């Protein structure tokens, strides 16, 4: 089992799942266009290594360890897509498959430089999905831009990459740590009590990727999908 195929599987599960709900092996099979049996075999191996949790009838979902890898590789993938699209002017249809090959070879250091070079993009070019967070300890990209002029190394690193709040399961908690969309979004969330470091609890999410209900500072908030995707937490 190569690290490339591990990453590909975790990335696929990440893309297909939401709110930590298990997805079926046949969904993954369809995603890769391969036989369900070989997917099941692979999933079992991933489960053994602690990347995913799997039970034959309920399906598979990412464990914390797997989620970290998935966020990382998805981040690299979407940044590369941006690069291929914006800088190399490769067409939208082709960037995905190109990025799929390159993402495994991109080092963390190069990824960080790429992000800076692209001026901290929020979305990937082909399907407008949010680019996951990095492990620098900033709450917005603007802070990174500001502080990069000074000294980036001083600011240290997070122990783990913040994960999207949309990946949290019902009842799970996390601390707000990174907000996409810059200062305006952050200020709006701050005013409602979601300041960086605040603990939030996921109560439920409406079906069909609807809004999420969260508890923060003793009050109940409904956050639309466009907003939850911007919020990354340390769980």
């Amino acid at each position, binding site marked *: 089992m190569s690290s490339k195929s591990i990453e590909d599987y975790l990335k696929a599960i990440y893309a297909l799942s939401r709110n930590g709900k298990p997805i079926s092996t046949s969904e993954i099979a369809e995603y890769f266009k391969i036989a369900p049996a070989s997917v099941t075999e692979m999933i079992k191996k991933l489960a053994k290594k602690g990347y995913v949790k799997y039970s034959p009838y309920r399906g598979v979902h990412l464990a914390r360890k797997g989620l970290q890898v998935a966020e990382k590789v998805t981040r690299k993938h979407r940044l590369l897509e941006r690069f291929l699209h914006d800088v190399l002017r490769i067409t939208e249809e082709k960037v995905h498959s190109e990025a799929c090959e390159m993402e495994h070879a991109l080092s963390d250091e190069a990824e960080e430089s790429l992000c800076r070079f692209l001026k901290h993009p929020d979305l990937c070019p082909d399907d407008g999905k949010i680019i996951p967070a990095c492990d620098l300890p900033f709450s917005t990209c603007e802070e990174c831009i500001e502080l990069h002029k000074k000294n980036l190394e001083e600011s240290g690193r997070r122990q783990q990459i913040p994960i999207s709040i949309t990946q949290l399961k019902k009842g799970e908690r996390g601390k707000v740590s990174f907000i996409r969309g810059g200062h305006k979004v952050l200020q*709006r969330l701050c005013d409602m009590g979601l300041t960086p470091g605040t603990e939030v609890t996921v109560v439920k999410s409406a079906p069909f990727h609807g809004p999420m209900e969260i508890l923060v500072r003793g009050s109940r*908030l409904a956050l639309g999908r466009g907003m939850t995707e911007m919020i990354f937490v340390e769980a």
Partner: protein
Amino acid sequence: MAHKKLIIALAGNANVGKSVIFNYLTGLHQHIGNWPGKTVERAEGTLSFKGYTIDIVDLPGIYSLSTYSLEELVSRKYIAVERPDLVINVVDASVLERNLFFTLQLMELETPMIVALNQVDIAKRKGIEIDNEKLEQLLGVPVVQTVATKGRGVSQLLEMAIKVIEKGQTTRREVMYGEEVEEGIAKIIETLQNVQFIYPRRYVAIKLLEGDEEIIREIAKLVPQAVKAAREVAGEIENLHGHACSTVITSEQYEAAGSVARQAQKLVPPLKLTAEERLHNLTTDRITGYIIMVSSLLLIFFGIFTFGNYTSDILSNFLYRLEPLSTSLFGTGIVGSLVWGGVAEGLIAGVTVALPYIIPFYIVLYFLEDSGYLSRIAFLMDNVMHKIGLHGKAFIPMMLGYGCNVPACLGCRIMETKRERTLAAFVTTLVPCAARTVIILGLVGHFLGIQWALALYVFDLVVIFALGRLAFRVMPGEPSALIMEMADYRMPQLRTVLKETWFRLAEFIKIAFPLIIVGSLVIKAADVFGLLNPIANLLSPVTVVWLGLPVITGITLIFGVLRKELSLILLAALLAPVGLQALTPVQMVVFTLVAMFYIPCVATISALVKELGGKKALYITLFEIAFAIILGGIALRVLTLFA
């Protein structure tokens, strides 16, 4: 000191019972208008108490005093510029921490204030006990516990307000930020020493650090060096904390609010879920939530239309009996027919829609809003509304639109940005209101069967969706996502509901009636002077050639501008003695389609002008006329293929 005038402002988060207190204090002595030049509502009322005449201003419900929304800006400016004698900060005891965040911000404006700790009953049921004295001591301002829905504590609140105004307020606790922030604030205040500004110096210093655009702009004109100093200090703070300065400040404010809340409250969460929570879970559940929503909405619509139809008939029968009276007074000449056919019929038209449909609609709507259910509907519908570039809250004006488009357009104010208000208002004008329902049911439903009428409703939804999506694509700007507090359910208050209904109705009458009357006078005059037939002939290339309708529909569609169902009533009259059966089934469908979409009625247009401005209202009107005509023509050609 008889009849001294005082001004007291009510400020606080949304859903904390602010308007209940407002209603309790002012009764019917209220005036609801707009803030000058803004589409933000301003509610004012007066009362007499202990020899004072007190003006109460109900500020919009907001969560912060930054400038994210118009409401926040308006509130902040009001407190700073108009300097009310006292601000009563209404605080929800059951969500203390978030509410105190706003309280601490208010304090920075250095306005005299007291706190109304409201909904202590709900807090108690949630297992939250608040130590009043402790809270007073921590905040440095008087705190009065209230249960506004039962009127408890409201008179004590007023007494305390007067006491504080008479004595003047001295003690106050300001949020103390971390050392480096406080040092920075001191440094900036120094540069501001010789400046007179509407906001207090400390507040200006804090806002400069936060990068508040409005204040930076103003101060840059007066003391550019203060802005420069603030930028330097902000840079230092950012370096030290590794976060943007505004984030540091907001975090520390929340930290302070949290610490006050933790010290003043005792939490003993109940073992069982409260009834409110169980209801919340049921109504937001992925299965039961939708079942409850759909069935209650259907019930509401069915109920209102049955009631509306019935009372509308009775009312118009009664009012038309007054015709002989008018004839005997003004005769049947030009004056007589202008008075009856113009003014009186216009009035009747207004009354028979407003009273039977709009009043019950408003009552139900405010009942739902007051209870907290509307925010649950917004939660469930967010995803659907997202498809047309809006978020869940936009479902509320759309729902209103089924009753009448006028309040629906006015209701689009709940959307946060201008772009969303425009989009939502456009979409609501496409919703078939009660008047259009009369046409759909009275023509297609009656002659072709209810399944065809339902098909038209479904088709309307498709059109709303398609055009909404189109408008969303065409309009520049980013959609903003939903952030909404879902406050606990509570028993709605009949008094508040009826009062809201009354004030909305007054607003409706003010906007709609003058135009309906003037409009019908103009059309009647055209009729009296024999201009209608020439106009109908002029329109015949469109009505006859393109739409395949009888010539007279040109006239009836003009009348429909006043009030949509008039076009049907008139058509029936003009087609006499055969009546509406004279139309072929295809003509019926085409006529109904055109009537559904062709133009927002004159009252809706004026609501659009009020909310969006003349230009946008004109664009929407022209677009809908063109759209209806094109659609009608296509429908004719397609339907003839199958007929």
